[in-house]
């Protein structure tokens, strides 16, 4: 194994040298090859090797031998998925460039593929979340009569599946596909509401601290320092423990406590940003001019500061949403987040996680937990791509 790795490395090293030399002689010593460092040549060869391997793995995944095909099934799906997403994003961008207002056309024209992929994905998630009731074949809490519990995903009767329930049923006989679709509504919806709450708390206090300064700023900032000194997931778990004692006594669902707890913990980060953004704006001369004019606090915050803070806040909203979404998913995965009977992706991953071990002989069965986890990942990746593009754009404007 190690020997093979060494041979491969040495081989590629030699190839890199040959590649550069060939480039130099073929192009008549063009600057591109003449000034190319050896490391870069090696990088090209390495990249080519990885691409070749992927092509090989893909053909293996399409092999007629079931054992080999199963082994490379997931790689095949990943490659196909990647290509489909890339093409979809590309088509979506073309669509965006030809339809809509001049403003949206201009936006799409300078958009990288990753961002158009992100926007497309977010739109699809939004559709699923809003119309979950119409799309899902069954209700999220519906225990379908006459259908067995624990139907294995994959729809293969030989392995305990049922073609009518392609994604199988869970331990009490609810349709997993429907629960996945409802997950979009619950998981995303709750995360969205939590982020909004966090922004409301953190944003208001942050701008107040930046505008007023003085004691209020000092007290709030020190408080936030202390709260931020405790890692957020740990703090959330601690507070959830306590909430789990309170919740039944007060008769409030634990999920509500979770929303409040995560919103408060996350609002500390929002506060920091809002205060920093606010302070950058407050030192501007136009704020000084407004102050010297005798304007009140309300005018200053709503007319002068907020309109100038929307761009960084919007980007931060995306990042915060991802963070909240992942925290909730983690809590649910650990069993203290969104509570049953609400369908939720984090909980589903925990419940279905065992199916991963069937991957070698029943690859479709193993996809169920990965689908739930992948649904979480896909949305956060999408949001992050969009935010990355927005940040890149706004930093580019400054130059």
């Amino acid at each position, binding site marked *: 194994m190690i020997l093979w790795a060494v041979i491969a490395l040495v081989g590629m090293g030699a190839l890199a040298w040959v590649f550069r030399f060939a480039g130099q002689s073929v192009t008549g010593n063009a600057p591109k090859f003449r000034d190319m460092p050896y490391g870069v040549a090696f990088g090209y060869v390495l990249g080519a090797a990885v691409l070749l391997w992927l092509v090989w793995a893909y053909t293996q995944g399409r092999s007629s031998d079931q054992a080999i095909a199963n082994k490379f099934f997931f790689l095949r799906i990943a490659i196909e998925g990647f290509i489909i997403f890339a093409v979809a994003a590309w088509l979506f961008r073309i669509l965006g460039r030809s339809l809509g207002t001049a403003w949206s056309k201009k936006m799409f024209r300078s958009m990288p593929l990753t961002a158009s992929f992100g926007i497309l994905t977010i739109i699809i998630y939004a559709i699923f979340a809003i119309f979950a009731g119409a799309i899902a074949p069954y209700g999220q809490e519906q225990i379908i009569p006459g259908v067995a519990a624990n139907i294995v995903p994959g729809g293969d009767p030989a392995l305990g599946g049922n073609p009518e329930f392609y994604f199988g049923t869970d331990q009490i006989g609810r349709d997993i596909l429907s629960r996945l679709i409802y997950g979009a509504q619950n998981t995303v919806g709750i995360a969205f509401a939590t982020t909004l709450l966090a922004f409301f708390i953190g944003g208001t206090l942050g701008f107040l601290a930046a505008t007023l300064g003085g004691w209020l700023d000092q007290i709030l900032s020190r408080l936030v320092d202390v709260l931020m000194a405790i*890692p957020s997931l*740990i703090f959330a778990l*601690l507070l959830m423990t306590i909430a789990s004692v309170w919740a039944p006594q007060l008769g409030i669902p634990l999920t509500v406590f979770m929303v409040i707890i995560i919103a408060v913990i996350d609002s500390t980060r929002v506060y920091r940003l809002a205060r920093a953004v606010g302070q950058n704006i407050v030192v501007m001369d136009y704020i000084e001019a407004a102050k010297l004019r005798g304007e009140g606090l309300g005018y200053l915050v709503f007319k002068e500061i907020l309109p100038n803070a929307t761009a960084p806040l919007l980007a931060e909203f995306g990042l915060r949403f991802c963070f909240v979404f992942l925290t909730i998913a*983690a809590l649910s995965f650990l069993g203290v987040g969104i509570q049953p009977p609400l369908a939720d992706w*984090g909980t589903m991953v925990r419940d279905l996680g065992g199916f991963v071990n069937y991957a070698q002989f029943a690859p479709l069965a193993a996809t169920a937990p990965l689908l739930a986890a992948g649904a*979480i990942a896909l949305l956060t990746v999408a949001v992050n791509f969009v935010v990355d593009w927005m940040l890149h754009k706004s930093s580019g404007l400054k130059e």
Partner: protein
Amino acid sequence: MGNVLKIILQRLALGLLTLLIVSMVIFVAVNLLPGDFAQSILGQGATPEAVASIRTDLGLDRPPVTRYFQWLGGVLQGDLGTSFAQANFASFTGTDSGATTVAQQIAPRFANTMFLAMVTAAIAVPFSIILGILAALYRNTVFDRATNIFTLSSISSPEFFLAYILILFLAVLTPIFPSLSNIYEGMAFSERLEKSMLPALTLTLVVTAHMMRMTRAAIINLLASPYIEMARLKGLSPMRVIVKHALPNALAPIINVIALNLAYLITGVVVVEVVFVYPGIGQLFVDSVKIRDIPVVQACCLIFATAFILLNLTADIMSILSNPRLRHPK
């Protein structure tokens, strides 16, 4: 030099103060719990004697301020109290309730978690810094874009997703590493390493992505500075520009990145330990949260917070130490 020392001492004092306040926050949060705690642990069926014995055992009959200082005093001496679950168990079996303290329960698991963190750091730190520097040097190339997509995706994915993907490929489809990490004491180092490999790799994926992006940003920022342009315009070799002019100034941001990400590990470790059933402090924490074993939750929380604060403090102090303006005052 005295100047630097003063600043560092100030930061240390501030760190200690933060820790003290954090301990207070944790204590207060726990004491917000409604009703009689002893009752709620033992459940409705417990005899009044058992409840009373636990109350005195755990000191629940004293006022909160006294309890806080007793708890704090205990913590400073390494006594983290008695686990409720253990106390509960002891009161039923009639054995001495002091048999298993929280400290005894936590110690081996803490060591396991430290081991995991160190393996992760050993892989992630060199890997991500080299990748980060490469991405900065070859920015806006195919390589940079590919790593950007890859790292963004891995940051965005929940830890359990990465964990299952790794299990799928490295444990189920190609059985290289075991998917469960049953670590026990007295294990050979190599075996231990093998069993910890998947959780360590999962954490590596998450941390590397963060660290790489931050390193890249720090280096790009640095390469844009006029003194790097000046060094290039002096006709120095690219190697010398990097080693002599960029690196001494890159040290502070890179150390900062490392410390911050090790702090980030603390959060990641909880989920990853649960997925791989790794007997570390994260798993103990989650288990205790589920059974509401308050003293253990409190202790774990304090340990996590301490590690977090210490790492941030280290980052802070390192960046002060590497700042030439502070090291060589006017």
